[in-house]
């Protein structure tokens, strides 16, 4: 297949391709095109949003450049982050939600924090729709399946129902973790160390086997390979315990989890942050399937995997932990002082790019002119229906699922495991987690208002921050930190 056909099929624009050629000083090869297609995608590269997100205030946070940010309480740091898993949940709600939990847990785990709480914000269409019921049921069961099994309590959340989410449910999941300040590990690296991959065997999960490009290059394609990721919370629990133990080893200098764009994004990011070169030998990665191509190994989104950068003197200690937990693992490469990110198959070098090209992709501006619909909404006139009695109106409101008790939902989540839950779901505006390490109770809440943001993005967002603030303050907590997950349509569509 011609390179031009390949890069266009993989959503790299002509101008982006020119950028790649010019920075590399040559044409990229096919594998390298796959690497850029993943790292420069909106999903991984945040190319339309990074400029704007950089404006958010970060003072007072610990580690704002890692997977999760933190706030310090005494000798400990509380890390927290919220992420979306909307599209996978729309396709396969149970596994989409389950793997969403898996991913967000690993984000706090990657800095060495023990996960201690989960929250979720979910939006679905109207419950009278048969498919919406299927999505709603699947997502709740998926979160329950995964969160309960790994023993992290889901302590708070929200569920909303509106027509606009009928075909595109929103599944936003938040994880909170705790770690001693001096035990935080970052996703850095340094030359002259080993790279160790632990966790599940790498398969073709998350790879879009139906794409024209992959059919050309993959040797064994029987049926269209399903791209659905399947979660294994049992493996995740073992990963949590083994990772925390591995990170106690001082010779482990960096850690990252395999999330979007799997091994590629975690390893290249670590190379970039540590100013290191890297050599990965893809034939040494422990695989679940035969005949996997290098691009498949790099882009696979197989779940429950972590990457570590380990000094030579610490490798045996790491492998001892691996053995204790009987967790699959392989030493897949090393960091170098070449400043280049290189992939090998056996002795053969098959890709070589500067890590900063992968990690620092293009940043675009958004067209921020006000859409037509906002003025139309502001000109809407509502008339009051005075014929309805107060009793009728109240009954109508409280029978709306948006106002109903969500007991049916959180009853399916283990919300008391961990022995910390001080204020349970359904009791107050915010949940309370006892921090026995430091004394005191940590308040947690997750809030959103899609309708307000739709009508007035600025005020809607402002009000959402206020709502979270009020939820905490009304329960006696002093707000300490905030994070966000913003869900929008495709920025590349006008």
């Amino acid at each position, binding site marked *: 297949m011609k390179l031009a056909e390949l890069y266009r099929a993989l959503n790299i624009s002509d101008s982006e391709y020119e950028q790649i050629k010019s920075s590399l000083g040559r044409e990229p090869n096919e594998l390298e095109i796959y690497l850029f297609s993943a790292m420069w995608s909106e999903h991984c590269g945040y190319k339309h949003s990074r400029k704007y997100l950089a404006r958010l205030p970060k003072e007072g946070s610990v580690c704002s450049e890692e997977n999760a940010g933190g706030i310090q309480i005494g000798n400990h740091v509380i890390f927290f982050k919220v992420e979306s898993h909307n599209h996978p949940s729309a396709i396969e709600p149970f596994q989409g939600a389950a793997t969403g939990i898996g991913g967000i847990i690993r984000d706090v785990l990657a800095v060495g924090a023990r996960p201690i709480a989960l929250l979720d914000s979910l939006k679905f269409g109207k419950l009278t729709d048969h498919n919406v019921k299927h999505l709603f049921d699947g997502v709740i069961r998926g979160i329950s399946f995964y969160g309960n099994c790994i023993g992290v309590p889901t302590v708070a959340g929200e569920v909303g129902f509106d027509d606009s989410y009928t075909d595109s449910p929103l599944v936003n999941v938040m994880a909170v973790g705790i770690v001693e300040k001096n035990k935080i590990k970052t996703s850095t690296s340094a030359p002259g160390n080993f790279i160790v991959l632990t966790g599940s065997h790498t398969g073709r999960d998350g790879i879009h086997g139906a794409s024209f490009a992959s059919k050309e290059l993959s040797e064994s394609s029987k049926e269209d390979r399903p791209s659905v990721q399947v979660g294994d919370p049992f493996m995740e629990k073992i990963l949590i315990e083994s990772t925390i133990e591995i990170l106690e080893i001082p010779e482990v200098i960096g850690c990252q989890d395999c999330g979007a764009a799997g091994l590629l994004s975690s390893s290249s990011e670590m190379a970039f942050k540590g100013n290191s070169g890297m050599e990965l030998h893809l034939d040494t990665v422990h695989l679940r399937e035969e005949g996997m191509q290098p691009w498949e190994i790099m882009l696979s989104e197989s779940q429950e995997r972590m990457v570590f950068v380990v000094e030579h003197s610490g490798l045996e200690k790491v492998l001892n932990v691996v053995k204790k937990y009987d967790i699959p693992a392989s030493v897949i490469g090393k960091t170098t002082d070449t400043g280049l990110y290189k992939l090998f198959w056996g002795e053969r070098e098959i890709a070589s790019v500067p890590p900063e090209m992968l990690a620092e992709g293009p940043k675009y501006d958004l067209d921020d002119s006000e859409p037509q619909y906002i003025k139309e909404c502001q000109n809407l006139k509502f008339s009051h229906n005075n014929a309805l009695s107060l009793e009728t109106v109240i009954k109508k409101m409280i029978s709306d699922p948006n106002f109903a008790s969500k007991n049916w939902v959180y009853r*399916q989540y283990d919300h008391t495991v961990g022995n*910390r839950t001080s204020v349970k779901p359904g009791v107050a505006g915010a949940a309370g987690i006892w921090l026995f390490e430091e004394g005191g109770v940590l308040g947690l809440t997750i809030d959103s208002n899609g309708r307000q943001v739709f009508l007035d993005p600025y005020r809607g967002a402002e009000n959402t921050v206020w709502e979270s603030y009020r939820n905490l303050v009304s329960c006696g907590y002093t707000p300490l930190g905030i994070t966000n997950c913003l869900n929008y349509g495709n920025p590349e569509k006008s």
Partner: protein
Amino acid sequence: MKAGIVVFPGTNCDRDTKLACEFFGWQADYIWHDESSLHDYDVIFLPGGFSYGDYVSAGGLAKFSPAVLALKEYVKSKRGFVIGICNGFQILCEAGLLPGALSVNSGTRFVCDLTGLSVNNTKFPGKINLPIAHGEGRYVAPENMMKDINELVFVKYTDNPNGSTDDIAGLYDRSNKILGMMPHPERAVFEETGNTDGRYFFELIEAELR
């Protein structure tokens, strides 16, 4: 008082249990499931969780662990007390150390709630509340065994949350040295978590071993 807490791959209430034991001033050690020497301990806990992910059946894969096989010796030698909580109860039944089995909740969904219980022991108040959190908590046993089992029942639900036969939430073995229960006493020890009815069980164990 020395407590041993067996940890299987997938166990997730081990830390909770240790915290609770230490509240009572006990020394509490973790026993990795591969280990088979239990004799140092006055009480062995099989804590809650999802050993082996609950794959195949809850407790079904854990029963092959050396620690479980060693439990049989521990009990035979009357060394001390064994308490299986939630997944621990499931493992004890799967291993044949307690009669019956735990099956999928009648509502087919996981249930996490605070539930009322009556305990067959005068040291307990008439009704207590403990947290439950399980998807496979419905106690079942063959009809012909129920008469004998009813003599061993120790804890019953006052408002059956999962369809357990005869509202059974926990029971002893014949020797009165093994207790299995679905509710979580270790989650009801601290004021901070809102309910301290779990303390009665720890006090019971202390009394048994004095």
